[in-house]
């Protein structure tokens, strides 16, 4: 009897240890994965002499169990129990082991915190750099150099300009970016005295747009030009909004349409209606699903991040310029990481690859 038990013990060897990077509320028990292991019960005890109590079942093919009910700071012993035709079987006894509290998740700190820290540092550094008045240059963005001509054209034709700031509310970064482009567009249109329509899909977006346009009008020295009725909230409903904007295009025939912000299915409808009215169309969004339609149907398109870059480029505002510069360094870092990672794999080293596993 005893020697059978002995055989089994040597057959299944379990380990128990304090679960790393948790709040000391659990102990992890592991054993070599083995496909022909039966369903097992996990037993726990504070004193092996006094016997074990069942604390859970282990499903087939599992090789790990987390005892989340372990009290912090107590010494526990574990073993597995199962039955097969020959009767009751046990694994070895693992322990004593006690659950300890960790104040920090070092795993996360290492592979996520580190990257966050680097990115933050870089971005903040360049923001301060730019604020301290140092010159930060940005490459010209094709879609933007077209903005002034487009507005000029509308002026010559004596037609209005339409600016659609996306269909999301102001908690959407793209909408924010759109607004700072709107500021520049409004300033120009105010200068030329061209009508500017800004229909919005959300009440709060409308209030913000009104503020922006008003301020630009003042900056352009044409406060009289500002007409609050041209910046309207239409409806929160996606298609209701689009058909209303279509209505504006067909009625007022704007010569230049801007679609900047975050767009969904409506991008296509807007671009097509605009194209059919013969307007010059400048689009920009970070919604990769919608970019194809804009590229195919508009004259200029800001691709993804270019939208954010554009708002920095136009406003020449140090904060935006600085953070853009910071992001560029981020990209540079990524490229370096990728190249390094590929090389290490070529050389057959896996440490770097494994460094990037999100799951423990």
């Amino acid at each position, binding site marked *: 009897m005893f020697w059978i038990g002995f055989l089994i013990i040597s057959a299944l060897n379990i380990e128990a240890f304090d679960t790393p990077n948790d709040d000391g509320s659990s102990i992890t028990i592991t054993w070599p994965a083995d496909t022909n292991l039966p369903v097992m019960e996990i037993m726990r005890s504070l004193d092996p002499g006094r016997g074990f109590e069942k604390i859970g079942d282990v499903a087939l093919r599992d090789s790990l169990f987390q005892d989340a009910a372990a009290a912090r700071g107590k010494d526990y012993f574990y073993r597995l129990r199962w039955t097969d035709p020959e009767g009751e079987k046990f694994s070895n006894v693992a322990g004593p082991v006690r659950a300890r509290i960790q104040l920090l998740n070092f795993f*996360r700190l290492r592979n996520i915190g580190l990257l966050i820290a680097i990115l933050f540092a870089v971005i903040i550094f360049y923001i301060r750099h730019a604020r301290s008045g140092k010159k930060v240059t940005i490459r010209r963005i094709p879609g933007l150099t077209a903005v002034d001509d487009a507005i000029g054209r509308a002026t010559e034709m004596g037609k209005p300009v339409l600016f659609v700031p996306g269909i999301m509310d102001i*908690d959407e970064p793209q909408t924010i970016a759109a607004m700072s482009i709107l500021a520049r567009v409004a300033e120009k249109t105010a200068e030329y005295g061209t009508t500017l329509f800004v229909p919005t899909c959300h009440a709060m977006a409308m209030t913000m747009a009104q503020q922006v346009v008003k301020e630009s009008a003042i900056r352009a020295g044409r406060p009289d030009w500002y007409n609050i009725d041209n910046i309207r909230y239409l409806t929160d*409903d996606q298609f209701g909004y689009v058909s209303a904007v279509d209505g504006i295009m067909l009625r007022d025939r704007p010569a230049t349409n801007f679609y900047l912000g975050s767009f969904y299915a409506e991008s296509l409808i807007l671009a097509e209606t605009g194209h059919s009215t013969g307007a010059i169309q400048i689009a920009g969004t970070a919604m990769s699903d919608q970019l194809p339609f804009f590229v195919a149907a508009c004259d200029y398109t800001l691709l993804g991040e270019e939208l954010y870059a554009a708002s920095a480029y136009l406003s020449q505002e140090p904060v935006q310029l600085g953070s853009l510069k910071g992001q560029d360094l981020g990209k540079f870092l990524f490229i370096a990481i990728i190249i390094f*990672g590929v090389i290490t794999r070529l050389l057959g080293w896996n440490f770097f690859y494994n460094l990037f596993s999100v799951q423990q």
Partner: protein
Amino acid sequence: MFIQTIGIWIGAFLTLAIFSFLYRDNPVYKVAENLFVGVSAGYWAVVLWFDFAWPNLFAPLFQGRIYYIIPILIGILMFAPLFPKISWLVRIPLTFTMGVAMAVAITQYIQGDIIPQLQGTFLPLRGVPFFTAFSNLLIILGVIFTLIYFYFSKEHKGALGVGAKIGVWFMMVSFGASFGYTIMARVSLLIGRVYYLLHDWLRVVR
């Protein structure tokens, strides 16, 4: 059963009413559109109350967790703009949501996207069939060149310009692909509606 039949007829009517917009904007469409806006607004009001506001704020409050009055008050401040004098108070819910959302976003983007995607780009070029290695190399270069296109600090001249150009090509191909898929999706929706009319309503298609 009879009530179902009526429902199908209503559905068919609304479907055709909305399609009538294709001919030109008309009263029938406007009826359907306004009906839709009304129904969906009502629908979301109910769903948001029962599935978001109630379980997350009010249920705990009534279970005796008094401090849940705080988020409820924050939420109510959302109505501040209706009263010009205190309208600025709306910034409290705004900043609260922004603070939480943005912080969660940062960790989420890095843990869920950037790090796994970086790792996914360390593709093997050795010990795999030639064509796989070739494709892997293309992926690696594609990612790098696309990133170069989004590099704003320098004018795209010389080598940088070439890289950016190639990046654009990669993007255009992928845009073309999703373009095709999107069109397929839209057409499927239309097929769905026609099927509804021919199968559920007119019963001419099995």
